[in-house]
Each structure stands twice: as structure tokens, then as C-alpha cells.
């Protein structure tokens, strides 16, 4: 058996080597950059040796991310927009996934195709589409004017609602598909058993379907929340105003915009810290679900 396992290990080596070089080393490089300095020419210099680390920027980034700090507005916007978008993804996505998985009979294959198409349509095109629709002479405002609203809102300049709708529009397919896959796999006989034992349709849904689909809701939530937290382009395209800045915008500004790369890297660490809290919750919940399934 030992020869077999070393045989298979050689297959994994190139890929593992690639990941070490381009995931692990870069992850350390971000820390080194966050702990770095600027030289006389004000160019950012990473501190590769932990002995020479300078915690100044990291301290500035983390204390600035707290309420009242310099980066708090960006952190607050990020949490608010991502939270609202996630709630909308659930409110819209769950009923859709539920219908397609459990009720659509003749139209099921067609609906699956229609749900998958947005996956293959460029994210940037989908944002471009909304820029056209929401521009001051676009179809949305035309519709509102036809309905008698003479002063329709300015959608594309610092409007947080547009940003939230755009985030939902962009990421909801990633929520729907895992939830659909999960609901589709639930054995209908379990729900029939609940109904046989006298549960009303609502009770059967509440006590059987919903708990069984919980791991998939969590997976879908993780799939939409992770990219949303690092998103800056949706905001740039739909709002283009510092009023709706998210953490991603702040990082992008520091790293691509100027020479504040140390601070940008420190904010990346802030982002990862926030996500670590979320991931810990996710892992705790999935571990609990798995245990519950085993003992059941």
C-alpha cells in the first residue's frame, strides 16, 4: 500500500507546488507588505524577515476599521450592503430554487437552463446592462415617468440601493444553484411521511424541508458573501462615488491608486479577519449539521 500512496502523491506534486508558489508565498507576501515600510523615495518596501516587522500600518488599519475610525464608513457599508444583499438573495433565491426543484414538472429542464445562463454571461456585461437601464434617460426612469413620477431618482451616482440591487443581480445565481441542488436531492418520501403523520403543508416545510436544506443555504450564502466582501467593481460601475465605498474599494484605491501599498495590504488583513469570523461560524454550523445527521 505504501508504494501505491507514493505513486498517487507524485500526481499531486505539480499542483501542490503551484499552490505553494502562488497561494502560500503570496499570502505571506501580503503580511510582509502590511508589516513593511516606505523607503526614502516613499516606495513601499515589504519586510520579509519577521524580526524587522513594523506593526504601524496594521495597527492603523485595524484601529481605523473600528466604529469612528477612518475606514469605518467603508467597513460599515460593506457589512450593510453584503447583509442586505444576502437577505435579498435568500428571499428571492430560495422560493425560485424551491419551485424549480420540487414543483416544476414539464418546465424543469428549461428552468434549469434559464437559471444557469447568468453563470455564463459575463459579470461585467450584466453590470453594463444595468448602467444602460438605470441611466437618467434609461428605461427604468422612463417607466417611472410614465407612472407619474416626475423626478425619478439619480440611480448611478452614489445610490446605495442601486449598489445593493446590482450586488444581488450579480451574485444571486451562486446562491440559487447550490440551494436548488440540495432541494432537488431531498427524498420526497420524507416530506410525504411528515404529511402522513398529520403535518400541514406549512409544518412539513418548516420541520422537514427547511432543516434538510439548511446546509445548502449556508453553502449558497458562503458562495455569495465571499466575493461580495472583496467586490469593488460593482460599486465603481454602479455608484462611482466615495459615499458608497466598500472595503474592496478602499483596498483597490490604496494598492492600485497610489503608493499606500502597506496600508492596502493591512486592509487586506482586516478583510481576512472579518471573513475568518464568518468562516468560523460557517464551519461550526456545518459541523453541527453533520453531527446531527450522524446521530439521527
Amino acid at each position, binding site marked *: 500500500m505504501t508504494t501505491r500512496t507514493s505513486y498517487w502523491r507524485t500526481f499531486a*506534486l*505539480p499542483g501542490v507546488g503551484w499552490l505553494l508558489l502562488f497561494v502560500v508565498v503570496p499570502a505571506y507576501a501580503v503580511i510582509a507588505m502590511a508589516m513593511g515600510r516606505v523607503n526614502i523615495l516613499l516606495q513601499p518596501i515589504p519586510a520579509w524577515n519577521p524580526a524587522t516587522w513594523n506593526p504601524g500600518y496594521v495597527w492603523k488599519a485595524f484601529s481605523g476599521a473600528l466604529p469612528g475610525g477612518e475606514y469605518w464608513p467603508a467597513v460599515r457599508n460593506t457589512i450593510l450592503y453584503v447583509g442586505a444583499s444576502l437577505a435579498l438573495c435568500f428571499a428571492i433565491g430560495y422560493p425560485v430554487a424551491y419551485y424549480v426543484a420540487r414543483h416544476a414538472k414539464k418546465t424543469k429542464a428549461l428552468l434549469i437552463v434559464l437559471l444557469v445562463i447568468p453563470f455564463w454571461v459575463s459579470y461585467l456585461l450584466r453590470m*453594463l446592462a444595468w448602467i444602460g437601464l438605470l441611466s437618467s434617460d434609461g428605461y427604468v426612469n422612463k417607466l417611472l415617468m410614465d407612472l407619474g413620477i416626475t423626478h425619478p431618482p439619480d440611480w448611478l451616482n452614489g445610490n446605495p440601493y442601486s449598489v445593493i440591487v446590482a450586488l444581488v443581480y450579480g451574485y444571486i445565481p451562486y446562491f440559487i444553484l447550490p440551494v436548488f441542488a440540495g432541494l432537488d436531492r431531498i427524498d420526497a418520501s420524507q416530506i410525504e411521511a411528515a404529511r402522513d403523520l398529520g403535518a400541514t403543508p406549512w409544518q412539513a416545510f418548516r420541520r422537514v424541508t427547511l432543516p434538510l436544506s439548511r446546509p445548502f443555504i449556508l453553502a449558497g450564502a458562503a458562495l455569495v458573501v465571499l466575493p461580495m466582501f472583496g467586490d469593488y467593481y460593482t460599486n465603481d460601475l454602479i455608484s462611482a462615488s466615495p459615499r458608497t465605498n466598500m472595503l474592496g474599494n478602499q483596498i483597490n484605491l490604496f494598492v492600485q491608486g497610489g503608493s499606500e501599498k502597506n496600508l492596502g495590504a493591512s486592509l487586506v488583513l482586516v478583510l481576512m479577519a472579518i471573513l475568518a469570523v464568518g468562516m468560523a461560524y460557517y464551519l461550526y454550523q456545518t459541523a453541527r449539521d453533520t453531527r446531527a445527521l450522524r446521530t439521527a
Partner: protein
Amino acid sequence: MKLPRRLRNPWGRPRFLVIVTWIYVAWALLPVVIAMLFSFNNGRSRSVWQGFSTRWWWGDPSLSIFHDPDYTHALVHSLQLAALDMLIATPLGVLLALGLARWRGRGSGVANSLMLLPLVTPEIVMAVSLLVVFTQLAIVPFTLVHLGTGAQVVGQVTFSLSYVVVIVRARLALIGPEYEEAARDLGATPTESLRLVLIPLLTPAILASMLIVFALSIDDFVVTQYMSSDASTTTIPMFLYANARGGTTTPALNALATVLVLTTLIGVGAAFAIYAALGRRTSTTKVSAFRELSGLEAA
């Protein structure tokens, strides 16, 4: 067995759900269709319809996408990157999937979590970290890669790799060890059983992952932008990002986006046809073929 009427549909009449679902589908797809139709607008506006024309596609001798070098260049560069990403990430990922699925013992657990890491890291984190190594770390493998096409390919392969592994491993789990064990029992060496049994069984999954890598690459924005050097390494998504809000940008931009989407959808359609044809031998239904192809089974 026929169930009593009350039990046949234990969830009541889902009229509300039907409405929600179709409104969602319309909301998800109509804006995209409208944006694509605007590439045929007979005017400079991307929001007010001014009649039909093909001027932004080929009519205009300097501003249409096939005449403006900025557009054609972005298109060519996007396709180049997608091809390179596909050619590198697919074999690397298939090998990694085989290795991770079978390799037990020290290091395998770490390697597994390492493989999942790119899937749970926001793209901007990966982009910033790769930018730091390629601009600051003066040791060998990194100094060989320069910002521009090289760094873009490395970045894209890095995040595509995990998708390939997930898809191929899902298929491996579905196949099970029996066919391979039978081959080994009949005297095949590990390499022979891999070549003659496992790889043919994995073909649909390999095809599906190639396609997903292609789509990931052609649609990627963040990593590709951070790894770019100058205008010569602009891709379609980067071009869309830079020009989407410009007041002077013409519907040629919509035409470019339409080309991008049609390329992807034609690719998906072709792969689906091949996949369904291959799957028929192993009695795969069309729906399950489609679902596997769209990465649903892996989810």
C-alpha cells in the same frame, strides 16, 4: 402505486412560486438581452433606442468593433489568455485531483485544504498578494514572471485550478474504485489502468472542467486587471470596466460584450452536445449532463 390526491402534491398549489420564479427569470435575463440589442442601436446612445443598424458591428469604418483596434485587441487577448489558462490549468488540475483523491498519509490533509483555499478567498485578496510577489519578491520563479500576459496566465491558472480539481474529484467519487480494481486484477499496472480505464471514464469531467476554465478566464476581471501591465494586455472585461460609464462610449461596447457572451454560450452549447453524446453510452440523461457540466454536481 398511486398516492391519494391529498398526498400527491403535499405542498399545495404553488401559484405564488410560479409567479416569483418567472419574474426572477425575466429579471435575470431581460436586462442582458436589452444590453445586447443595444449593440444594434442606430445612434451613439446606450440607453435610448434610435432605430436599428449594424454600424457598431461592422458598418462604421473606424468605430465599429471589427475596425477599432482597441476592441479587436481586447478580444484577441481575452481569447489568448483563455486558451493558455485552459491548456495549463486542466492537466495540472486533473493530476492534482487524481493525486488528492488517492493519496493518503502525511501532507494529504494539508494539500486538500490548500487546494480549497483559492475558492474561499475573495479575488481581491489573491490579486493583491500576487501583485506583491511579482513586483517585490526578487527570487527566481517570481522574477521570471512579469506583469502582463505571463502574470495574467499565472493568476488565472491559480484560481481555475481548484475548480478543475472539484469537478474531476466529484466524477472520480461517482465512478468508484471498482473499474480500476478490476483492471488491476486483470494484470494492468497502475499506469495502464489509469490510461485505459480511468482517463476514458473521466473524459466528460475533463471536458467540463476545460469549459469552466475557459469561461472563468474569459469572464475574470480582478486578477486579470491586477496582473496586467499596459494597454496591450487589456481584456474584454477590463475594457468594459474602463468604458462602461464613459459618456462618449458608443454601443460598440455592447457589441463587444455580446461577442464575449456569445463566444461563451457557443462553447457551452458545443461542450454540452459532446458531453451528452459521450454520456449516452453511460446512460446519462440530458438534464444530469447539463447539471454536471455547469458544475452543479460539484456544488
